[in-house]
């Protein structure tokens, strides 16, 4: 197959589809409400909603790594914490 060297699996493909969908959703959000909703949150940082998505995704990555180091697989708990973290970031950061 043409893409066999990329070693695709449905799990990793689903991950990238979700990231792509998040970016598309952010694009639609920006189109509906331009300007990025800049604000200064509880950390004293000036963020737009794109920044908040970046912080959420990066934070989710490290939450998963921390979970794997501490408790091992499966990382469902890390996923739940990441969702809560993202909600908190979009609400307060």
């Amino acid at each position: 197959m043409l893409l066999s060297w990329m070693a695709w699996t449905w799990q990793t493909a689903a991950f990238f589809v979700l990231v792509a969908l998040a970016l598309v959703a952010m694009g639609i959000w920006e189109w509906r409400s331009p300007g990025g909703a800049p604000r200064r949150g509880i950390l004293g940082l000036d963020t737009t909603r794109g920044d908040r998505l970046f912080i959420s995704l990066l934070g989710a990555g490290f939450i998963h790594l921390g979970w794997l180091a501490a408790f091992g697989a499966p990382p469902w708990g890390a996923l739940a914490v990441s969702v809560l973290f993202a909600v908190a970031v979009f609400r307060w950061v």
Partner: protein
Amino acid sequence: MTARTTNQKAWWLVAPVVVLVAFNALVPMMTVVNYSFQETFGDNVFFWEGFKWYEELLRSERFHDALVRQLAFTATILAIEVPLGVAIALAMPRRGPWVSVCLVLMALPLLIPWNVVGAMWNIFALPDIGLLGRLINGLGVDYNFTQDPTSAWVTTVVMDVWHWTSLVVLLAYAGLCSIPDAYYQAAKIDGASAWSVFRHIQLPKMKRVLTIAILLRFMDSFMIYTEPFVLTGGGPGNTTTFLSIDLVKVALGQFDLGPAAAMSLVYFMIVLLLSWVFYTVMMRNEGT
């Protein structure tokens, strides 16, 4: 409130860059993610392993040690190169024929290929035939970077400082040259000391270029490979085995592509996080 942009045609001008980035960054990145969850013995045959490589990596003493060495190296060279670069930039002339001479001299180390820098310092610092090695030993200091970890560390740091301080100098110098004379004249009228001029005029005006310099030096030093590999090969023992050297050993030496892919991604995330923290902290309150 920002007004809605009605003409979106300019996005087409970005399209070539998007395609380029997709092929040279996104596709390899996706492949690394795919590899990091699988095992392969070659011939495009893969076996699903789940999070096994990540669990092993995050609990691996070898990885922790390499990460600590990497952080220590980066912190050391930043602590030396940034103040030294700013000091040299402050000492350089702003006008006259010596400006070109200084700039060319400063740029020279940056023009030398990384493997050549490693080879140069290897020969230069050899304790038996190298000029530096013989000189230091002649002064009564026991120096041998091929066998002594302290010597190996000092040589690696000095080599990096020699190679890359120029970059900080050139960026800081560009920042200094952009300060209008009126600022200095006003400071002179106020009777400001040299320290006050530096603290309240030069340093704030250099903030943006220093942010770039620190970010570039952080990322480069955190991903350093060629120079220490040629100089010490990661030794003696593992004392100068930084993350990138360890990664290459896992990926190419042991051909463990799955664990190497997991390590690459964790490595990438650390670089991304620290770069973001550096940038955010340094640019804080910039817009206010």
